[in-house]
């Protein structure tokens, strides 16, 4: 029993890192420009299919394919920002919700016509890593390590590079940033691109662990919302912690009850946090 619990715990934590970066993408965009990206889930799905296609058609190693998927995720976000989001950036929130939802519908529509809604698998294995009583699949371990690396890279970028500091400055006070000579539109587009890049990377990593379909992004989008609100809106570190909590629950809850209880408990926790600590565990951005 203890071994089963420990194994589930570790499995859950590992996937939690991946959930964390998916949520960071959503959180970064909201934190910088107060836009809730409703195309977040479909972009996660695009990341999944990106890795799937590069792997099954070109025979690329999924973790190498991930680099290309990341670049495409960034470009996708830049284009999406300039075409769909920038024109409503100063409009009431409903406008940007509708704009990103429109992109969501387009991706789902085109994706469904190309891939139908059937399930696909990235048939790739890295074997199993065994440490004492614990067995972990290699892909899951690799995915979580990459997620951790991406988190560290994002943190370094935001806090130790000039461009990263521009993003934080624009998030903090856009008109002031412009007065210093920071071209805010470019910075907003870049932030949006990094947000969608994180979503695409998360999708690509999930594809190495679970079967995928074009609608699968939806449930990860929902998870991202829960994680982001738990960790504190606009707080990347909070997103990581929220991701780990959700991953843990997903690992441990099925040991005691049916898997279908997982979302019920997740959303119960979500509501409790909203009631008790609405600013999130680490506190929201000011």
């Amino acid at each position, binding site marked *: 029993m203890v071994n089963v619990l420990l194994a589930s715990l570790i499995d859950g934590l590992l996937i939690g890192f991946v959930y964390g970066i998916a949520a960071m993408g959503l959180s970064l965009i909201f934190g910088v420009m107060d836009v809730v990206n409703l195309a977040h889930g479909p972009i996660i799905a695009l990341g999944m299919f990106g890795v799937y296609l590069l792997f099954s058609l070109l025979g690329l190693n999924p973790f190498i394919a991930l680099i290309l998927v990341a670049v495409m995720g960034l470009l996708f976000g830049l284009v999406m920002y300039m075409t769909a989001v920038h024109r409503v950036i100063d409009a009431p929130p409903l406008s940007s919700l509708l704009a990103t939802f429109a992109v969501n519908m387009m991706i789902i529509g085109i994706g469904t016509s190309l891939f139908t809604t059937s399930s696909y698998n990235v048939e790739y294995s890295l074997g199993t890593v065994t440490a004492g009583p614990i067995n972990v699949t290699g892909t899951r371990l690799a995915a979580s390590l990459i997620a951790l690396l991406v988190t560290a890279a994002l943190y370094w970028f935001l806090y130790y590079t000039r461009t990263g*500091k521009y993003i934080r*400055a624009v998030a903090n*006070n856009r008109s*002031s940033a*412009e*007065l*210093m*000579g920071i*071209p805010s539109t470019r910075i907003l587009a870049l932030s949006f691109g990094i947000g969608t890049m994180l979503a695409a990377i998360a999708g690509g990593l999930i594809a190495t662990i679970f079967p995928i379909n074009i609608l699968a992004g939806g449930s990860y989008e929902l998870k991202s919302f829960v994680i982001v609100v738990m960790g504190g809106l606009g707080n990347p570190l909070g997103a990581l912690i929220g991701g780990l909590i959700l991953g843990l629950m997903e690992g441990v809850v099925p040991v005691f009850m049916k898997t279908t209880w997982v979302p019920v408990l997740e959303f119960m926790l979500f509501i409790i946090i909203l009631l008790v600590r609405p600013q999130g565990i680490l506190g929201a951005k000011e």
Partner: protein
Amino acid sequence: MSVLEIRNVISGYDELQILWGVDMGIEEGQLTALVGSNGAGKTTLLRTIVGQLKPWQGQIIFQGQDVSTLPPYTKAEMGLIMVPEGRQLFTDMSVMENLEMGATPRRARAGASQRLEMIFELFPRLKERLSQKSGTMSGGEQQMLAVARGIMSDPVVLMIDELSLGLAPVLTLDLFQALRKLRREGITILLVEQNVRMALKVSDYAYVLAKGKVEMNGLSHEIEQDEAVRTTYLGI
């Protein structure tokens, strides 16, 4: 020739016209004060000069170039820098990071370390607080940082909107001392200030704005002696 020239500028917000044809000239190396009662249009004028508002009519000439419709970040690159009313710091970022953001314009990168030294001399208090989150400092310290951040941009013209608003008298004196030093360093300054007496004391030249127009302009010590100014703005 003036380094910054405002020619018959008309501007406002949406449908609301605030400025009704303003003419001004800012001379290089001088400290120019812009005074007037609440609602006279001082902040609107600064926001129009810096590009946060587009002039409806008229021109803004900076170093001989028409910059009327350029966005704020382009003007900042050129050296037209504003310290906005209410400080508008990056409150989630450290003092040092705020100063770094000030040094964004390409022209400001080279001499950034010398300017940092100058700022530490001017405001020793900031040096002790480099890693503190700027939003957690007192109002006076925040105003010092706002001015310091402006200096980091290597301004050709530094526009300061309401230097002393909401500050204790002691801090106000400190900031005006700092302003005198900056003036001596040769930085061209346009100061909007609700404390008319202080503004006229510290400046070389002054404009009095009323109802969106320049009501009077001249050497500060002459404006200070003007009967109308004394009764309206100085309460004498």
